[in-house]
């Protein structure tokens, strides 16, 4: 039998001799990430089981990030519930008190917890992000979390895979965000439901780890279960700095079967946005240029990394953002924040008139630190623009690359970043 990456990793974790798409399997989980959901729902579900242990306290990664530091009494209580649970069950990797760390999907890989060949689940749909590290990872709800906490196993339906071949190199001012938005627009937000997307080719290898994380982060917006990259030297170098743990990289078999194949030449990708209120509602930048914005948001697990802050700072360096626009910058983690501080990027943002916040989900979820008011228009580097996602239901969110966000902040209206770079 020949296998895709998803099939290989699932087979490896299910103690089966053979595996095929559509099959229901029970797989061993290597790591589970859990955030505010622990205090929101999981603890209620878990207590119903009436057991006084978790299967393996070393394999649980617990962090608080959505409402950090808590802006309301109710979120503070949610945090208390979560911390109590983590202490009761003696989680080893308990970051419930370290509110400085940052967004789960950034911090977990930074700490070397996502490695090739692993099977990771998390209480958050963007857990797919770790696919950038040649592992399988996906989001689950509170009940699934409880099952994994109790047994270390979870049921899966083996997915079919799509092969996405990438060639070429992104042009100046064009980012991997533009590619993944283009893909979602092409196949639609239901185009990959239940599928595993495998990113192949020289084009994929030319993408930085930061860029790959953006792509893997957003595969779920096309409905995918996994989005996974092949291992290479860039990944090896990245992991070397983060972990001493051993891993074995996973390559697909040459004659593995894919349900569909797609080809994208990255040099043909141009800046795009997702118009309200669906991440698949894609338009070329030319079609929306000049649309007035009230807020520009740069941050989130999609695009709050060094590469993102660097290009935005390059665009804003020595300039002022439009006087009728507010800009919010949220580095995805403290590590990134410190790095950006040392490189002088934070000073650039502050001098340009942006607000720089601590590392949190914050504005992305309309929780705090930049909530939109009625009819506000926001250009955002995040991954979802559903009705009311970032605030009032009458507000409008355009999803775009960090370059487009910065260029638009400068002009107070949606702007093609290639014009200002």
């Amino acid at each position: 039998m020949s296998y895709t990456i998803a099939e290989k990793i699932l087979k490896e974790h299910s103690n089966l001799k053979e595996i095929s798409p559509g099959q229901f399997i029970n797989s061993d989980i290597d790591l589970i990430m859990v955030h505010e959901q622990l205090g929101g729902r999981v603890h209620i579900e878990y207590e119903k089981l009436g057991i006084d242990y978790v299967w393996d306290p070393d394999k649980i990664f617990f962090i608080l990030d959505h409402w950090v530091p808590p802006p309301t009494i109710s979120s503070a209580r949610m945090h208390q519930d979560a911390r109590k649970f983590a202490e009761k069950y003696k989680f080893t990797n308990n970051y419930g008190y370290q509110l400085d760390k940052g967004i789960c999907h950034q911090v977990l890989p930074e700490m070397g917890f996502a490695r090739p060949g692993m099977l990771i689940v998390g209480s958050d749909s963007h857990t797919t992000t770790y696919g950038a590290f040649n592992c399988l990872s996906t989001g689950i709800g509170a009940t699934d979390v409880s099952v994994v906490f109790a047994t270390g196993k979870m049921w899966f339906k083996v997915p079919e895979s799509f092969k996405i071949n990438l060639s070429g190199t992104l042009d100046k001012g064009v980012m991997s965000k533009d590619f993944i938005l283009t893909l979602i627009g092409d196949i639609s937000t239901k185009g990959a439901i239940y599928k595993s997307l495998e990113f192949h080719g020289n084009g994929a290898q030319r993408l930085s780890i930061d860029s790959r994380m953006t792509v893997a982060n957003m595969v779920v917006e096309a409905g995918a279960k996994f989005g996974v990259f092949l291992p290479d030297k860039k990944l090896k170098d990245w992991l070397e700095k983060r972990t001493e743990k051993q891993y074995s990289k996973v390559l697909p078999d040459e004659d593995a079967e894919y349900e569909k194949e797609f080809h994208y030449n990255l040099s043909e990708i141009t800046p795009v946005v997702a118009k309200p209120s669906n991440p698949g509602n894609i338009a070329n930048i030319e079609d929306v240029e000049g649309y007035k914005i009230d807020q520009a948001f740069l941050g989130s697990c999609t695009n709050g990394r060094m590469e993102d802050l660097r290009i935005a700072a390059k665009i804003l360096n020595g300039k002022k953002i439009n006087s009728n626009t507010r800009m919010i910058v949220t580095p995805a983690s403290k590590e990134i924040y410190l790095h950006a501080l040392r490189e002088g990027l934070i000073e650039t943002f502050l001098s340009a008139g942006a607000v720089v916040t601590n590392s949190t989900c914050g504005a992305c979820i309309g929780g705090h630190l930049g909530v939109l008011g009625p009819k506000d228009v926001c250009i955002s580097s995040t991954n979802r623009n559903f009705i009311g996602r970032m605030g009032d239901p009458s507000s409008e969110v355009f999803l775009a690359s960090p370059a487009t966000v910065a260029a638009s902040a400068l002009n107070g209206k949606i702007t093609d970043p290639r014009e200002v770079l």
Partner: protein
Amino acid sequence: MDKIIGDLYILGDNINTDDIVPSHSLTIRDSNEMAKHTLEYIDPKFIKKVTKNTIILAGENFGTGSSREEAVNVFKLLGIKAIVAKSFARIYYRNLINKGIPAIILEWKEGDFSDGDSVEISLMNGTILNKVSNLIVTFSKLPSFIATILEEGGILNQLKKTLNTKN
């Protein structure tokens, strides 16, 4: 659990988890209070219209978005008997099954059903009968793996049993 009888409430394509439970209500501790916000941006009257007899019929990609299980819980609390859709988002489908709510994938078209129609679903036969027009639409029967979880009333009930047998 074979026959499910109820009245339809119809929704469109791409109803997402933020539509079902808006982010702003996620930190509400009391689940019944949270449930009052269900679908408030899509239909502010939903909460008034829904009864213990309601079956939801939706279009493509139902439940797309976040992993928040609240988006399933609120329907469970409101007494929704089943959700029928042309397709479901992956996490949402899992959450429904895990919670013991039948999730039925049905290719239906405009004109097959209207809001409020009484229907009878047979999980065993894979059919939905529109009792108003007598139209019968068929769907692929649930895989036995999924059917078993539903029979048990959700995956935690199933798990409790195995935990008990171990002890």
